[in-house]
C-alpha cells in the first residue's frame, strides 16, 4: 500500500491531538519529540520500549556525565565557520549569515564550546554518497562548518541558503530547508543535536520530522528569525537563532570558576 502525504497528515494530526489531550489532563509540556513517533517511519524500530532509567544528578557530583569534553583552537581552522570559502571557487546560491547564542536553561552563555553544522547545498543535495536525490552537487560546497562559541556564547557562520529536498518517508515527502546543528554544553548531559529551520517555510505542516515536536511553542524555537542587523551589505542575508541546552549541569562546579 502506498503511503501518501494525506496518510501522514492524518497521523500527524492524531499525534498532535493526543498531545493536546495529555496537556489538558495536566501532563507536562513536552519540549522534545517522543522517540516513538510513527509518522517518521524510521523511528519505529529505533526507539526503546522500556522506560528510561532516571538518574538524579543532584545526588552525585562525581558523575562522568556532569562534565563535558573540551575543544579548543586546535580543533578548528580559521575558515571553518565560513562554508563559502572552503573550496577554490564560490558556491552557487544565496549567501546567508547565521548567528546566535548558546545558552543553558538558566539563560547563561555556554562559552568556548563546539558548534558543528552540516547542510544540503542550494539545490537540496548533500555531499554524501548515500544521498539518492539527483539534484546537482556543487564542487565548491561541502556544507560542513565548525566553530567555538565566544565569551558571550555567540556563534556565527557564513553559508549558503540550503534547498528543500525530497526523501522517502512517504510519496512526495519533502524536507523543509534546514541546517543541522550539533552542540556541547558544560556537561555531557546537555548534549544536543537538532535542526534549524527558516521562517515561513510552506513545507512545515507536511514534515513529520519537524512535527515530531508536538508542542507548538517548542516547534517555533527551531525556526530562525530574519535579522536585518546580521545581514552584511552587498554580501549576505542574516538569520538569528539562539540555542538553549536542556539537561542538568553541575552548577556547584561553575560557581567555583
Amino acid at each position, binding site marked *: 500500500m502506498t503511503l501518501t502525504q494525506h496518510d501522514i497528515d492524518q497521523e500527524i494530526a492524531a499525534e498532535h491531538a493526543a498531545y493536546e489531550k495529555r496537556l489538558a489532563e495536566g501532563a507536562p509540556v513536552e519540549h522534545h519529540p517522543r522517540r516513538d513517533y510513527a509518522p517518521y517511519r524510521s523511528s519505529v524500530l529505533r526507539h*526503546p520500549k522500556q522506560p528510561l532509567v532516571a538518574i538524579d544528578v543532584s545526588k552525585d557530583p562525581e558523575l562522568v556525565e556532569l562534565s563535558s569534553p573540551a575543544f579548543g583552537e586546535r580543533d578548528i581552522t580559521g575558515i571553518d565557520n565560513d562554508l563559502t570559502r572552503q573550496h577554490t571557487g564560490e558556491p552557487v546560491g544565496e549567501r546567508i549569515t547565521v548567528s546566535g547564542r548558546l545558552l543553558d536553561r538558566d539563560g547563561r552563555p555556554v562559552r568556548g564550546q563546539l558548534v*558543528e553544522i552540516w547542510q544540503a547545498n542550494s539545490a537540496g543535495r548533500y555531499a554524501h554518497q548515500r544521498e539518492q536525490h539527483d539534484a546537482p552537487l556543487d564542487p565548491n560546497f561541502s556544507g560542513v562548518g565548525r566553530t567555538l562559541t565566544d565569551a558571550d556564547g555567540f556563534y556565527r557562520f557564513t553559508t549558503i541558503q540550503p534547498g528543500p529536498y525530497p526523501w522517502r518517508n512517504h510519496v512526495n515527502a519533502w524536507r523543509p530547508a534546514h541546517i543541522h546543528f550539533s552542540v556541547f554544553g558544560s556537561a555531557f548531559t546537555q548534549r544536543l543535536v537538532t535542526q534549524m529551520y527558516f521562517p515561513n517555510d510552506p513545507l512545515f505542516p507536511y514534515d513529520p520530522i519537524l512535527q515530531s515536536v508536538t508542542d507548538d*511553542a517548542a*516547534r517555533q524555537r527551531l525556526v530562525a528569525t530574519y535579522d536585518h542587523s546580521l545581514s552584511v551589505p552587498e554580501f549576505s542575508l542574516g538569520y538569528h537563532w539562539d540555542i538553549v541546552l536542556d539537561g542538568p549541569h553541575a552548577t556547584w562546579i561553575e560557581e567555583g570558576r
Partner: protein
Amino acid sequence: MTKIDTSGPEGVLPTPSHTVGPFYGYALPFRGGEEIAPLGHPDTITVHGYVYDGEGRPLPDALLEVWGPGPDGSLPAVDGSMRRDPASGGFLGRNGVEFTGFGRIQTDADGHWYVRTLRPGARGQNAPYLSMCVFARGLLVHLFTRIYLPGDATAAASDPLLSRLDEQRRGTLIAGDEGNGTYRFDIRLQGEGETVFLEFQ
C-alpha cells in the same frame, strides 16, 4: 521566538532535539575518533560491538560518542580530539600523547563499531564506567547509556545505578570480557535484551 530573552528570573525554555539524520558523514566523524588512548599506554582497552534495531538488524548509520575518565578517575579538560591541519583543513588525527577522554565513532556498514581508550577509574561511589551517547537516523532524541567493565563484583554491587536494576537489565550495561583487554558491548535499541538507557534529572 528564536531570540531568547534572558532578562527574566525564571530561566528559559530548551531547544528541541531532532534526529542526526543519515547525512552527517562529512561533518561529524573525524580521523582517529575511535582511537582515544595515547599510543602505547599500558592501560589501553578496546571495546567493540554492534548496534541493533528492534528486529535485530544492525544499524549501518549510527553515530556513537564515548566520554570517560582516565585510569585515576579524573576527567580530562584537554582539547585536541579532532586536531586540524590549518593548510588543508583536514584532520591530523590525535597526537598520540594527550588523553582527551572523548571519542566519536560511526558504525560500519555491518553495524560494527570499536573504540580504543584507557581503562576508566572509579569516581565516588560509582563503579568505573564510560559514558556513551547514541545518535542515529530515526532516533529523534539521542540516548545515553554506560559501558561498565566486568570483573569487580564488589564495585558493581555498590554502584548506585547497577544496584537498582534487575540482573537481566543490569547485564546490558556490563561489557563481556574477551581477554587481552578487549571487551564486547552491543547496543540494542529495542526489543529483547534492550539496552538500559538513561535520563538525567
